């Protein structure tokens, strides 16, 4: 029958009119990133970290610059964990290489900045900052 398609189309549009909307009001609402999202800054869990430098060895772009300190108990721990995110491929090799799963992405996708040197940050320092905040 001719003209049936017109009514079907009207039905579809009115269904979509009352449906839940797909868009997100960006500055107020943000889409939650999935678990496997690689991006943002590296978060170092210093309790788990054994300072083996596996992550920087796995890095194809030499984006990780680590400084290891050995204290009086012959225990190794990170003094500086510098991540040059300008060089970073976000390939996840460092996270995969870590034997104790001490590093992870914080999945914050708003990483644009005005100056080149803001791309480089120290994960250990970030942890200290979080501690002082708390």
């Amino acid at each position, binding site marked *: 029958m001719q003209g049936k398609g*017109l009514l079907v*189309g*009207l039905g*579809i*549009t*009115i269904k*979509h*009119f*009352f*449906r839940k*909307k*797909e*868009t997100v*009001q960006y500055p107020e609402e943000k889409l939650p990133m999935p678990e496997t999202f690689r991006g943002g800054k590296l978060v170092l869990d210093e309790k788990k970290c054994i300072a083996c430098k596996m992550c920087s060895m796995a890095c194809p772009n030499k984006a990780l610059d680590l400084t290891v300190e050995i204290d009086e108990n012959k225990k190794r721990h990170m003094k500086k964990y510098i991540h040059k995110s300008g060089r970073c491929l976000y390939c996840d090799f460092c996270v995969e290489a870590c034997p104790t799963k001490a590093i992870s992405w914080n999945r914050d996708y708003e990483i644009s900045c005005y100056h080149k040197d803001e791309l480089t940050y120290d994960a250990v320092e970030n942890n200290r900052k979080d501690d002082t905040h708390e």
Partner: protein
Amino acid sequence: MHYGLLMSIANMLSNGINSIVNSRIGTQIIMALIEIIAIFAVISVAVIILVYMERRVCGFIQDRLGPNRVGPFGILQTVADMIKLMTKEDIIPKKAHKILWGITPMLLFVPAALVYAVYPFGDGAIFADVNIGIFFVMAVMSQSVLMFLLGGFASENKYSFIGSMRAVAQMLSSEIPMAFSILAVVMITGSLKMSDIVSAQSNAWFVVLQPLAFIIFIISMIMETNRTPFNLVEGESEIIAGPFTEYSGMRWALFFLSEYANLLSAAILTVTLFLGGWHGPLLPGVFWFIIKVFIVIFIFMWISWTYPRTRIDQMMSLSWKILLPLALLNIVVTGIGVYIYKWMY
């Protein structure tokens, strides 16, 4: 004697002015000015609401929210748009016929606003209840085609000219089914007067008596107001913007304004002819009128955001080969029906 809400307000106003001015002629002049201002206020407010509504409805149908940033719920979006258009540079094309080109947007607004003189907004609230009301509406509405032709011709731009030629073809072919579908209503009413057409629907709306005429009228009205699926005049994917291509800033805003004024008058005409005008229970007539008009406008928007644009030949064949025979058939059936009705009672 009429007892509508708008009518009582007007009576109060004229009595108040009369007590100040103390002369009948002075009162009439002031009242006429107030009425003119009222028409323009209605059109302006309606345009602000309609543009916002259009964008919202479009957004909702496309699973988005639409404008919701400027003001509460984005109500002031249209105001922001208007301010933006007013501050734009006024660009005049080098080759255009400057006088014709400049006068077109203003001329286009004349028929769009003139039609409102004969619309019944409420019980007795009608600016000029002339005895050829609906005929006047059809005559004035078909004038806007001249402005489209003028604007397209004066722009000296091939796309504008194609658009204006399309406008002529489209409006000519939409006027005729529209006239015949209105004729069926007029046959039942036995009068061209707008107030008579409304009062004839106090028992049964004409949408019940004339469903075929109603459908034909809606389709030809969409053609008349250049809305999708029949927005061939603008046709933004084929001919940049049709007759509006060379216009910018405030001149374009005037085109926009008259387009939405036409949409509102199409909705008012539909309500007046087929949906019982201001008739309705409980509430005063004006509120019923506004509610019905907005429902009809929503239906127009719903239709226009559902269908893709037709080709010009498809539109012409729909109008001449389908709508016109159907409208003629409807007139024949209506005539037989009216004859039988008179014979029975």
